[in-house]
């Protein structure tokens, strides 16, 4: 059996480094398109202030980009070092979008970043705008490929298990690329990035306006951020609904846990706005409910029923028992490839093999699994409810709060009175951390909600980890903690330094 603390440590390390990396990514995603808008205004109007805006916000973009790259590279190494069994099992599929991301999207993005910074005196106006646009495209292309890989972990389409090589193999590349779960995740995630970029520009511009510094520069930046942010906030909510709909189709256990829906209700199911979750007794002690809302949002129908956690667990128990047959048949078949009976038995139960592997968390040989072990594996097949329930509500609450902020900012922008509303400027300034909190909550919902799987329904998390020593995991964790803290200090120092300077940061002495 795999040491559970080894699994937990490996998960903690990946989760903390991935969430740290995701501090930088959304800002890059959003700010890149805002640079395109600012530079397009410069090319069309010829006003130098738009060029200065592009260069100033571009400088902050560059600081963020450099640190984002540094923290992203370690994640790719971790697949090999900490998740070697996972990499062997699904590397054929998971590796393809990652490789394309590195060779196509990241190379495009990083080349254009160089041209963006050093091309100002060498390129024509339109030439430089083209570079900025390609940089933004590269950033977003990078996101789509990463989310195709992640989407496959949530809904493994276009692949089949090969019992000879003991790994999943790609059978349909188009299914992998056009996986609806991946596409929904992509648009929802990049929209959240746009909202983050807009909040960043809005908050810093508000700070200048509150101090009556760089007023014309800040007013124009505020306006662009207000419009772009409102579009981003509306998109993130609408596309989040789409993402939720795909979850209701492909990961019913995640949806039921997010909604703390213990029992199957009559369609359309009600939505628990807030609830006191009693995980032990599998019920909510009390809940504030909105009738019909969940059923309508998650199924877009009045009649389609959503299964509750108890029903999902009952279905999973059947699948675990079927999967145990598959695992034993595979073992027999691999020992004797001529055994057609074992082969037929394996084929009959193959779709449930992943579920059978869930018992291996408690017993080495699945044939030795007792009913109590099967019960325990059944309980594990749905993630813990309370963390998902509350993380989801934090994400949605913050998304709605940002929509209201950007609605107000946009309204007062078109009335041209925002600079005379200190309450709005203070509100915008203090909202700066909100998109990051929302985004981290969103990632937690997506990844914790997939548990106990690394690849949903196929490969349990506890079978995916490398057999490292705990000492090496503690050592590398300490290394990451120290190095990443240093990087965060550098990021904060540079961001504060250049944000305080404002457009003066463009003077040669600050280059």
């Amino acid at each position: 059996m795999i040491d559970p603390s080894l699994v937990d440590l490996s998960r903690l390390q990946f989760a903390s480094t991935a969430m740290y990396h995701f501090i930088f990514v959304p800002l890059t995603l959003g700010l890149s398109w805002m640079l395109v808008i600012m530079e397009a205004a410069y090319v069309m109007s010829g006003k130098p202030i738009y060029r200065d805006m592009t260069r100033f916000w571009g400088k902050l973009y560059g600081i963020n980009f450099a640190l984002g790259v540094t923290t992203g590279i370690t994640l790719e190494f971790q697949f090999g070092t900490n998740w070697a069994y996972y990499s062997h099992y699904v590397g054929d599929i998971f590796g393809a979008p990652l490789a394309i991301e590195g060779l196509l999207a990241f190379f495009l993005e990083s080349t254009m970043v160089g041209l963006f910074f050093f091309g100002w005196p060498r390129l024509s106006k339109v030439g430089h705008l083209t570079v900025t646009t390609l940089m933004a495209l590269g950033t977003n292309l990078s996101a789509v490929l990463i989310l195709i890989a992640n989407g496959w972990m949530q809904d493994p389409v276009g692949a089949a298990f090969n019992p000879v090589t003991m790994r999943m193999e790609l059978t349909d590349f188009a299914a992998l690329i056009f996986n609806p779960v991946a596409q929904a995740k992509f648009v929802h995630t990049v929209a959240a990035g746009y909202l983050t970029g807009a909040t960043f520009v809005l908050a810093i511009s508000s700070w200048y306006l509150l101090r009556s510094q760089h007023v014309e520069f800040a007013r124009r930046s505020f306006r662009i951020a207000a419009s772009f942010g409102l579009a981003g906030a509306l998109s993130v909510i609408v596309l989040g609904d789409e993402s939720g709909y795909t979850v209701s189709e492909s990961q019913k256990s995640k949806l039921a846990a997010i909604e703390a829906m213990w029992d199957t209700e009559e369609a359309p199911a009600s939505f628990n706005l807030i609830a006191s979750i009693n995980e032990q007794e599998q019920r909510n002690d009390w809940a504030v409910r909105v009738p019909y809302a969940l059923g309508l949002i998650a199924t877009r129908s009045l009649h389609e029923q959503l299964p509750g956690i108890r029903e999902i667990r009952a279905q999973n128990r059947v699948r675990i028992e079927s999967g145990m047959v598959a695992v034993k048949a595979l073992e027999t078949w691999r020992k004797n490839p001529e055994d057609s009976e074992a082969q037929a038995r394996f084929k009959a139960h193959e779709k449930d093999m992943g579920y059978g592997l869930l018992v291996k968390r408690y017993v080495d040989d699945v044939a030795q699994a007792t009913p109590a072990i099967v019960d325990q594996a059944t309980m594990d097949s749905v993630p813990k409810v309370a963390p998902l329930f509350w993380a989801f509500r934090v994400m949605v609450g913050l998304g709605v709060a940002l929509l209201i902020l950007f609605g107000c900012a946009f309204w007062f922008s078109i009335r041209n009175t925002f600079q005379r509303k200190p309450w709005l400027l203070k509100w915008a300034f203090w909202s700066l951390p909100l998109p990051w909190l929302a985004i981290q909550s969103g990632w937690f919902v997506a990844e914790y909600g997939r548990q106990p799987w690394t690849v949903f329904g196929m490969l349990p998390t506890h079978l995916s980890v490398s057999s490292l020593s705990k000492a090496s995991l503690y050592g590398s964790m300490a290394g990451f903690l120290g190095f990443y803290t240093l990087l965060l200090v550098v990021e904060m120092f540079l961001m504060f330094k250049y944000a305080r300077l404002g457009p003066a940061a463009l003077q040669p002495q600050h280059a």
Partner: protein
Amino acid sequence: MKFTPFSVGGVRLRVSRLAWHLTWILALKFVLLTVLWHVFIKPERVRIDAQAMEARMTRPSQVSSMESSHDRSLSR
């Protein structure tokens, strides 16, 4: 643009100073990465094959919290 003359195989070439510096930086970077790879990464290579995966998925596993023989290369 400033040029620096240098010769390759008896042929005298003129390249810009920037290109000369970039070449040196890339060469140094390549050497540094190669050294880092050999010192830190290569000995940690994890080797998983069909047998190792089979051992984890089907047969009673011998894997403990310590490193097992099959998922570390023998070159360590």
